[in-house]
């Protein structure tokens, strides 16, 4: 665990971390956040403005911004209730950032169960931050980290600490450092864009000047596959994001709906060169390995289980579009959805247990989630425009989707239980088709 973490640190240029506490890491009993329904009760947390250790008073503003950034990132997860700073009882001598100076009664009296303190020092372009997470009731330090890096890496450092916090509280690394690709019409054409998990820093990734659809990240986030009409018809493009290389699958008919096999340089996609839309397994270079479905009529939109052994997909073999699951080793196919006459866009949870999809009923499209055994059907969006294209965050705690609830189609996020629905970002044009990446490794 330490070795793995240190390896990552070495990769992040100019950054190092001193572990001055390892208490409880990896041994947490997750009493803070209830895993079975983590959003039922939000954990009250206090994040006071970081203590500015710099001489320069300008840096006090930066310390405040850093604290806000940390607070926003944690609030995004939906696990926490952020306590109002106006109610904090801060000693005239300034914020106490560590034990034994901290008076935990000052924090528990305002309802806080967790506290994060920060000490912020800017030295030229060099930034040093000490961050600590405390349990205010047990009066205990849970996570403590010290980061030193270039000023420009501040956001990354803060998100790394968030990741530590979430790991301590839930046992998963969270969704920080992940990205969301989506389709936007801002330029007048549908093009692929990507932003960070919280909507920050949207960037245009394709410049096809044609219709471009359905982005799909490889699980190492180094490749993206999408469908584009750049050559006049729907072809599949497989592109390396760093180097200028890739492949095009341009068979007769449609070459669409790519989905990468978890952990592998291969992907599934819908091809119709045979005259019928079937799902095929392709190499990362676009060569057909084998056909995965075999049924007259439309088969489309594959999504892999996290172990890569099964796919969920859409088929109209039963007369209406429904979600099916195929076990790739046994070849066994089972129908998953029976409610409604139009169920499409399955996305298999990275936790493995659920599939989220969009269901059209009475002319409205809503997001639904169902256990892979067909039980536990739950509708997550209600009476708010059309809601489509759901995609899981890499830790399976959240779902991004597109919605027309405010008129134009925009990207929204919610927790996996449907709570805390909010717009992710606002850009020119309309946005749709979000695809959440894995956690981007630091390199």
């Amino acid at each position, binding site marked *: 665990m330490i070795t793995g973490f240190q390896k990552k640190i070495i990769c992040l240029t100019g950054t190092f971390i001193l572990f001055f506490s390892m208490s409880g890491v990896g041994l947490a009993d997750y009493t803070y956040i209830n895993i079975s329904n983590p959003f039922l009760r939000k954990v009250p947390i206090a994040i006071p403005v970081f203590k500015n250790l710099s001489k320069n008073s300008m840096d006090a503003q930066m310390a405040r911004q850093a604290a806000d950034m940390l607070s926003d990132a944690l609030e995004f997860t939906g696990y926490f209730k952020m306590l109002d700073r106006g109610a904090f009882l801060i000693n005239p001598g300034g914020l106490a950032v560590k034990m034994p100076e901290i008076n935990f009664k000052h924090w528990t009296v305002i309802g806080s169960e967790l506290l994060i303190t920060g000490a912020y020092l800017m030295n030229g372009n060099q930034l040093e931050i000490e961050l600590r997470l405390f349990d205010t009731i047990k009066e205990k330090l849970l996570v403590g980290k010290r980061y030193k890096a270039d000023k420009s890496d501040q956001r990354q450092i803060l998100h790394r600490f968030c990741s530590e916090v979430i790991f301590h509280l839930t046992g998963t690394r969270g969704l920080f450092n992940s990205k969301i690709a989506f389709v936007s019409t801002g330029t007048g054409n549908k093009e692929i864009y990507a932003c960070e998990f919280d909507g920050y820093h949207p960037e245009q990734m394709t410049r096809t000047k044609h219709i471009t659809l359905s982005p799909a990240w490889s699980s190492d986030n180094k490749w993206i596959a999408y469908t584009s009409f750049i050559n006049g018809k729907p072809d599949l493009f497989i592109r390396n994001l760093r180097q200028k290389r890739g492949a095009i699958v341009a068979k007769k008919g449609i070459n669409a709906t790519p989905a990468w096999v978890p952990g592998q340089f291969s992907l599934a996609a819908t091809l119709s060169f045979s005259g019928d839309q079937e799902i095929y397994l392709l190499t990362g270079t676009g060569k057909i390995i084998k056909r995965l479905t075999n049924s007259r009529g439309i088969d*489309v939109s594959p999504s892999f289980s996290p172990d890569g052994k099964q796919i969920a997909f859409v088929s109209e073999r039963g007369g209406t579009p429904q979600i099916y699951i195929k076990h790739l080793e046994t070849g066994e196919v089972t129908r998953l959805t029976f409610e409604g006459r139009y169920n499409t866009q399955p996305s298999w949870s990275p936790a493995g247990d659920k599939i989220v999809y969009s269901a059209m009923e009475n002319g409205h499209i809503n997001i639904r989630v169902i256990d892979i055994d067909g039980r536990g059907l739950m509708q997550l969006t209600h009476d708010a425009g059309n809601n489509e294209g759901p995609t899981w965050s890499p830790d399976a705690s959240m779902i991004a989707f597109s919605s027309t609830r405010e008129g134009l189609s925009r990207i929204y996020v919610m927790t996996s239980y449907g709570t805390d629905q909010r717009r992710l970002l606002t850009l020119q044009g309309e946005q749709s088709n979000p695809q959440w990446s894995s956690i981007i490794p630091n390199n």
Partner: protein
Amino acid sequence: MRKRIMICLALLLVVPGLLFFTSCAKKTVQSEPTLTQQPQQPQVQPESAQDDAAAILAAEKANQEELARQKALEEEQLKTAAAEAAEAEQSEAMVARNMFVNEDIYFEFDSYVLSGAAQDILMGKAQWLRINSDASVTIEGHCDERGTNAYNLALGDKRAEIVKGYLVNVGIAAGRLMTISYGEEHPVDTGNFEEAWAKNRRAHFVVD
């Protein structure tokens, strides 16, 4: 046939005339309803068999003359029509081509079944393709905005393929027919109501 009816009728009129030949000299006999359209329906005055025979001959002659006139008229009309057709040939080909391109095949929601009306339109398209045997066309499959765009891309593909299959079945070479699916990406009407959606669920023809 007409002649035989005429003769039978004449006999029907003449025989009672012969039986009661003085009693109803001024009486006119109404013709059968089927014969009311005959021009110059002879009003037979049954005075003598010879006169009757002469009347029949006269009537027949008049009738034949009339038929000849009609035939001449018809031939004249045909000639005029042919001349007009020849003159308008160029523009008519254009009209046919425009109709071929502009007349879309429509589908029900989430369906790629060809309706009777769709098949009628396709018969017309097949005819155009037979006449314009050097033309290659692209069949575009389109969907309305409802439903999801990945599924609609597949549905549009199905629509284009079903139209192509129909034309191949009626004898158009498959090599002349390309297909492409645009899914829901190119609506003709961006309205958010059934009338607009119905227009968008279509197969559209483009002459290459």
